[in-house]
Structures are given as structure tokens and as C-alpha cells.
């Protein structure tokens, strides 16, 4: 546990010692804020649905960008060799990295809370439950995409390649339920179950179903497991 914290702290330091984190947070806030406020006063509805619709689209590119360097950079500059010769378990290293990336996403999400306070101050009959579940869904989706991005970052030492792989994988899981019309009926149900948007929309509606939670946690666990195995296999090559 202590090692996870040490890796997490170093990664957060690395984010905030460079312009990376600041650029990410500002752009995330500006993009989501722009799309939200654009229609918020037109519709006159006391909810954050527009925000919750736009953030997954922002995630598609932002999360692979945040996570692309998590492991690829270590491979690229050679610090992976130093890390691998420390008394440190691979899972501690991967979890520390994943949590740092996820924490940055949560900070970005927290920055959008300004829209929540705007809503509370000008709106009426605010459905706090739906807003809470909406944020929960976005957090879970963020964690899932970060796990996918962390995995993408582990398979290469080139950050640009990691970004492209990350965007591709994230898009696949995001687009799955949009392709259902092209999928044979017999497997459509299964494909839908794998689609991240399907589970997010359930939670966003305010229904916190254990099946959706299990999906998100399974996805996170699966991609973290893949990352750990990818790193461990390298020792044997």
C-alpha cells in the first residue's frame, strides 16, 4: 500500500511539475463549460444532462492523452529499468500509475462542479440524486478509460502510439452500442453488455444497478490485470 502511494505521489508530482496537468484541467473545464452553458439558459431545465452527455465525448481523447505517458514514458527514458530493480511489485507500480491518472480525471470532473453550483443557485427542483449518479457514472467511466489508457501505455515506449492505441480501444468500447443495428441479433445482447455507454446511461438515469457497477469494476480490473501481465512478460523476453 505504501508503495502504491509512493508511485502515485511521484506521478502526481510529474503531472504538476510540467504544464501537462494545468493544460488538461483548463481545456477540460473550458470545453465542457462551453458546451454546457451554450444550451443551459436556452433549455431552462434544472439538470446537468447536457454536461453529462458532453463529458464522455471529451473523455474519448482526453483520457488517452492523460494516460499515454504513464508507462510508455518510463519505457522510453529507461526509468523502467530502475523501477524494475527496486523491491516493488508490478501491481503496486501499475495501481499507483492508474490511480494518479484517475485522480487527474477526478480533478477535471471536480472542476465541472461549478456548473452544479450555477444550477443550484439559478435552478429550481434540482434532482440531486440524478446529479450524484451522473457524476458517479462519469467517474466510473473515467476510471475505465484510464485503465484502458494505462494498458495502451504499457504496450509501447512511444507516447503517440500509446495515445492512438488508447483512443482506438476507448472508441471501440464507447461505440459498441451504436453498432448494434449491424450486429446479428443473437449476439446483440452480449455486445450491448460490453458497451460502456450502455452502462453509463443506466447509471446516469439515476439507476445504480449492481450489474452496471460490476461491469465498470470488471473492465477496470481486466485492463489493470492486462497491464500487469504485459509488464511481467517483458522480463521473460
Amino acid at each position, binding site marked *: 500500500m505504501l508503495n502504491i502511494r*509512493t508511485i502515485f505521489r511521484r506521478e502526481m*508530482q510529474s503531472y504538476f*511539475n510540467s504544464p501537462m496537468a494545468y493544460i488538461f484541467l483548463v481545456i477540460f473545464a473550458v470545453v465542457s463549460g462551453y458546451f454546457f452553458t451554450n444550451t443551459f439558459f436556452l433549455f431552462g431545465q434544472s439538470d446537468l444532462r447536457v454536461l453529462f452527455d458532453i463529458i464522455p465525448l471529451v473523455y474519448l481523447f482526453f483520457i488517452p492523452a492523460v494516460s499515454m505517458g504513464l508507462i510508455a514514458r518510463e519505457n522510453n527514458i*529507461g526509468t523502467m529499468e530502475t523501477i524494475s*530493480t*527496486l*523491491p516493488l511489485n508490478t501491481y503496486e507500480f501499475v495501481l499507483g500509475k492508474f490511480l494518479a491518472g484517475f485522480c487527474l480525471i477526478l480533478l477535471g470532473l471536480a472542476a465541472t462542479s461549478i456548473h452544479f453550483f450555477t444550477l443550484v443557485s439559478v435552478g429550481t427542483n434540482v434532482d440531486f440524486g440524478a446529479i450524484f449518479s451522473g457524476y458517479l457514472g462519469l467517474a466510473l467511466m473515467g476510471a475505465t478509460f484510464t485503465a484502458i489508457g494505462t494498458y495502451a501505455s504499457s504496450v509501447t515506449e512511444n507516447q503517440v502510439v500509446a495515445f492512438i492505441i488508447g483512443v482506438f480501444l476507448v472508441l471501440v468500447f464507447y461505440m459498441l452500442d451504436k453498432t448494434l443495428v449491424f450486429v446479428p441479433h443473437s449476439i446483440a445482447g452480449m455486445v450491448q453488455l460490453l458497451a460502456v455507454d450502455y452502462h453509463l446511461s443506466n447509471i446516469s438515469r439515476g439507476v445504480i444497478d449492481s450489474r452496471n457497477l460490476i461491469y465498470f469494476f470488471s473492465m477496470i480490473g481486466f485492463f489493470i490485470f492486462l497491464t500487469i501481465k504485459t509488464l511481467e512478460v517483458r*522480463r521473460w523476453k
Partner: protein
Amino acid sequence: MIKVTDLSKNYGSVEAVRSISFEIKDGEIVGFLGANGAGKTTTLKMMTGYLVPTTGSIEVNEMNIMNDTHEIQKQIGYLPELNPLYSEMRVYEYLEFLAGIRKITGRAFKDALARIVEQCGLQGVVHKNISDCSKGYKQRIGLAAAMIHDPKILILDEPVTGLDPNQIVEIRGLIKSLGKEKLVFMSSHILQEIQATVDRIIIINKGEIVANGTSDELMSNFKGNVLLNMEIKGASSESVEHIQAKLPSVKFISMNETNTVQQVQFEYGKDQDPREDLFSYAVDNNWSILKMNPHTTNLEDIFRDLTTEGGGNA
């Protein structure tokens, strides 16, 4: 103590290390010498647990690297070949990070930092960004990182590569002082460096160990010939070129003449010393000897002999 037994590593069909065995005792500084691509770095990577051997075993203080990887890694300090560092971190932040992984925190870290800053001469840069440090300082930071936990064993991969002569002398002094109480295993392809620093030398060529011993032992085992450079006056080319007829142990190599002085090169076996006979031969043939300079074997000759095609006489 480190004991390596029948260690091999294959990268696909390429055999990088082929069944090597050696031992290093506590308090020894051992140099690992080899040409680029000989298998030095691969061996060190296996010894530090970064790579898994294809076959063979590595035991450190009677623990096996496959079963007790972390226990061994706690006892080892490792400086990788290219000395990778997190350039965006400050020096003390980097050392604090590594110390944190090794469970050295709070007061213990402050003490370790003070010791390592003193030992590696980092006083001027400890609060600087690593990216702002010179190459010499970066190398010291790498060494400090390897030693922050005061390990019993130091494994250094090319610790002086890229440093200027003054920095090399400083790092060499540091390694020698560390070697008084630690086991130090350092690789290099810089022969002078190894000769000046280590107690024992292991030479690896194409993945196999071709020599293992002190530099004196290697030289005494070396079966190469001695080249004798002479400057003579009044020698006929016939008497020089046919010297072997009179002195069978001396072989003529070359002869040049400038301003009536002949530069002659002879060769003789390392176990023979025909210089007295050669002197008598010179007197008989009315040569005036101006200079007689045998080229003694050095580590460079041994290294070249062992690591080039057709070598391997030691």
C-alpha cells in the same frame, strides 16, 4: 557474495549470454570487461532481477534471484547503463522517491540523504532540477540513487561512460572507497578504468567468459609475444633479417631507416628474454645499439587478443 552458475540468456534465437559461471566475494571490486554487445549488460540485468535468465542460477548471499527477487533487490544498488533519471524532478525529490520505495522515510531518509549527499558530493545540486545538472552530476545522482539504502552490493553498468577525465578520477575514487566495505561489480569497456579501479577482472566475449583473474594473473597467463623495438646504427639488412638463423627465439618483424638510424622490430616469446644474446649478436655484427625497448603486455593486448577473431590465448 554473488554466485552465478551456468547462466544463459537468449533473445529469440540470439544467445546473448552462454552458460557463464563466476563468484564474487564480499569486499571485492570486480570489473566486467567486454566489447559492446558481448553480454555485459544482459548479465547485469539478470543479476538485478530486471531480466529472467533462460537457464542457470544467480545466488546472492545464498538467496536465489528467481525465488527471493525482492529480498535480493533490497541488498543491491544498481546503476543502469544509460543512467535514466526523471529529469523533471528535483534531486532530493528523486532520492526521496527511491528511498520511499525502500521504506526509508522521515528521520531515516534525512540521515540517508545527508550521508549520500556527502558521499557523492551533491551539496551544490540537491535542490536543483535534475534537468539542470551537468552530466557529471547526473552520474553522481545515479550513483546516489543506487546507494540511498546503503546496499551491501553495488552493480554499476558503465559508471564512467561519457564523463570527462577529472570526473572519471572522482568517480573512480568514490568507487574505490565504496569497495572497502561493499561488493562492487562494475562493467566497462574502458580498459584503463577497469585496471585502475578493480581487484579482479572478468572478461566476456560473445556471451562467454574468456578470462577471470587479477590483472597480474591475466598478464602472467597471457601467451602473447613481446615486441622489441630497437634503434640501431651500422646494421646490414642481411644481419637483421636473418637473425633467426643465429638466435632462433628472435623473429624479425620490420625495419625502417632514417638518417642512418635503423628502426627495427623483433618479436620473441613471453617466457624468453633473448636481450643479452641479442646484445652479443649486435657486438659480433658491429651494430651500435641506440635504443632497446620491449613493449610489455598490457591489459589492452590481452583484451584485444581475447575478444577478436582468432584470439583466446589466455
